[in-house]
């Protein structure tokens, strides 16, 4: 016997309401949790327990939420880096390398040192590190941007390869030049080069003791606001979107495409470089081998899941920060990866809902 109903997909003829992407994305995350739960049940786990643990380990207290935010911080900036480039359909997959170059350049302030670390006030040291970090990332974005603008070299390949160059460049300096007693890391930085943390205020406010959240998250949020303003309000953002949507039309409208291409790659690199600086100065406090567990690549996913919206990047980054933290706590750690994979699949497939309307219609009863 056939069901008396049928489901049809109808192509949307008019634009979807503005709130719909948010709703479908949220729904797909929930569905992803449900599917993961079913998988856990099938392998004999207790999904409710895991879910409870997931939330208590990531959002359960101020302390663990702070850990989640610490992980989310680099993702916000790297996610923004990717979002800006993707808006112009520039496939920068080199945020990882730009992150490392940002870390390296900001470390130079301390390692050379560029200023007298004993007499210079903290805010100047930090500001200098921020600028250096962004310059480092911007240089690493400039190279593929210039090559594409000048010689039509594919930016995907160049940015990908430059990731390895950056990694080994870093390794050279921490192994050979500034190694801390033969270890693959530099000595710890002087306190003046540390980003302020909430735990620094523990003396005045007891509640902040042990809270490792650092100023980097503020950089991330400010960056998101600035990027939003650039994309949605400025001349430049309009140009970026126009070039991204139809380069032919952009050229016709008199825009300088090559200049914009290089500038956007530099902005993208600078944001990833800022993430590297924030991680060095806020968390690791030294230049070492594995500062990033692949933030640059996760940033690509973050940017897509956020549909290139700067504020959504913040929210998605927090979710991914939570997944990283949970992955450390839940055994086997693959469960967090499983969840991450399913979320990705769900959010991407939810795009169908933006393009189609789903209708359930009653079939005519046959006589």
């Amino acid at each position: 016997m056939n069901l008396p109903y049928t489901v049809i997909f109808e192509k949307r003829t008019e634009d979807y309401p503005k709130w719909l992407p948010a709703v479908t994305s949220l729904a797909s995350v929930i569905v992803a949790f449900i599917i993961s739960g079913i998988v856990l049940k099938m392998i004999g786990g207790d999904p409710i327990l895991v879910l409870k643990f997931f939330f208590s380990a990531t959002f359960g207290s101020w302390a663990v939420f702070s850990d989640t935010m610490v992980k989310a911080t680099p993702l916000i900036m790297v996610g923004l880096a990717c979002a800006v480039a993707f808006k112009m359909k520039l496939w920068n997959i080199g945020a990882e390398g730009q992150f490392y170059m940002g870390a390296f350049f900001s470390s130079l302030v301390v390692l050379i040192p560029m200023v007298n670390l004993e007499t210079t006030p903290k805010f100047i040291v930090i500001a200098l590190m921020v600028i250096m970090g962004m310059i480092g990332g911007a240089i690493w974005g400039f190279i593929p941007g210039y090559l594409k603008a000048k010689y039509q070299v594919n930016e995907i390949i160049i940015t990908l390869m430059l990731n390895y160059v950056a990694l080994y460049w870093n390794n050279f300096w921490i192994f050979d030049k500034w190694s801390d007693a033969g270890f693959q890391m530099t000595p710890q930085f002087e306190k003046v080069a540390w980003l302020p943390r909430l735990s620094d205020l523990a003396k005045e406010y007891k509640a902040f003791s042990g809270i490792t959240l650092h100023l980097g998250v503020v950089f991330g949020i400010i960056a998101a606001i600035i990027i939003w303003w650039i994309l949605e309000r400025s001349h430049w953002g309009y140009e970026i979107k126009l070039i991204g949507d139809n380069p032919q039309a952009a050229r016709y409208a008199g825009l300088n495409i090559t200049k914009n291409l290089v500038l956007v790659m530099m902005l993208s690199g600078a944001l990833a470089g800022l993430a590297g600086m924030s991680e060095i100065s806020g968390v690791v406090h030294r230049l070492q081998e594995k500062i990033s567990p692949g933030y640059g690549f996760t940033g690509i996913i973050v940017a897509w899941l956020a549909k290139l919206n700067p504020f959504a990047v913040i929210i998605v980054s927090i979710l991914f920060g939570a997944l990283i933290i949970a992955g450390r706590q839940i055994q086997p750690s693959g469960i967090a990866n499983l969840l991450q994979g399913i979320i990705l699949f769900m959010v991407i497939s939810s795009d169908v809902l933006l393009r189609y309307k789903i209708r359930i219609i009653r079939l005519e009863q046959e006589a």
Partner: protein
Amino acid sequence: MTSSPPSHAVEMKDIVIRFPGVLANDRVNLTLKHGEIHALLGENGAGKSTLMSALAGLYKPSSGTMRVHGELVDFNSPKDAIAKGIGMVYQHFMLVPTQTVTENILLGLNEPKFFMDLPKYDQKIRDLQDQFGLRVDPTMKVWQLSVGEQQRVEILKTLYRGADVLIMDEPTAVLAPQEIDELMNTMRSMTKQGKSIIFISHKLNEVTAVADRLTVLRKGVATAEGMDIEGLTGEKLAELMVGRKVIFRVEKKEQEPGDVVLDLREISAQNNKGVRALNKLSLKVHQGEILGIAGVAGNGQSELAEVITGMRGCEGSILINGEDVANTEPSAAIARGVAHIPEDRTGVGSAPNMTITENTIMKNYRDQPIGNKWSINFTEARDHARGLKDAYDILAPNVRTMARKLSGGNLQKVILAREITTNPKLMVAMQPTRGLDVGAIESIQRLLLEQREAGTAILLISEELEELLTLSDRIAVLHEGKVMGIMDAENADVKEIGLMMTGTKRSDA
């Protein structure tokens, strides 16, 4: 009875091909004799390609019959047509650039089965070449070949598949003059060996040089069926192609043209394939004047528009109000008050995934009141777009509608509205009404006339002669990148224009 003389390679009878809302071919007859070159002529959109696609098995005619060598055929796919010995040489080559000539020719065949004994097939192809005089090294990769050589590969492909009826869709359009001569020699040698050829073209000199008979299509109807080439005059051909129509002129105010706005001096430029498209062309357009550019598509019209608007490099000088802007960027032309209605509305003239608002501010997003120093005032931008939407009668739910959701006519109005609001000194309009319905055509034409009255110099490039005669003050005919002649639209002779379009000048003119 149903048998027909075997001397006919192809016989198409009463072919009707209907697309939704369009009658592409209306009871067309075409008979191709054995060993002849039959020219098929007509303007763009006359239905030539559609008719040939039916013969090549791409479309099924709505009614009518087709016979190949006297046998009634009913093709369901190009494969069926190839099996009957019909091969089509397309205008756009279908070759794999990284493979050799031999590999491309063998592609899709059942032979060789598994082992590629290429040298053996290279030899087979060399033999085929010797037979027809089609020189191209079979071991070369396609990307290393010139356009003419690639075309020979396409011809070899059809010959290798055993075609004895070849359809050549504007084969000369992509070729340089000496390559055209070579192609014609090949065509003659092929017919000597029993092949029959249908040659699609709209160039009179080529047709008279190589063809035996011709069929002319106009708006899907055959105006000449299998007419002998002998004794055919340019006038006659122009009349067959363009037709003699009663021209209805809309109200156009008398006005004296003002100073020269656009002065083109000996402009030469290449097209995207690197072939010369404009050849030392000189023109002047005055204030408050519409200069119409007539010509068969592909004679340099697109390149002319692109050169003036800064989108294509060139030799020579382009003076706009006395300033040379040749070889600059589009921004230089825009800054000097050049508006551009591009040929390709969706590919060039608009950004499909951006809103009407964003599309209307493409050229003034930096100017007050929409643009501030760094930012765009989107409230102003929306008001601006709403104003245009009302003034130009753009049908859309609201100004947040994406450009890709607009109909052709409404999109064209968005583009025109945007260009007019820049208060242009010169407007370059390329095919502004193509593909639009009657109502939209009328409003676009009226807008152009209003611009003329406002003192704008307008260069109107169109393939619709009727439109040119209606709107223009003067008409220049373009042929192979050169101006064949300029005449007043008021008392222009359609036949003479048609003649010039095919590259001939009346001897007494």
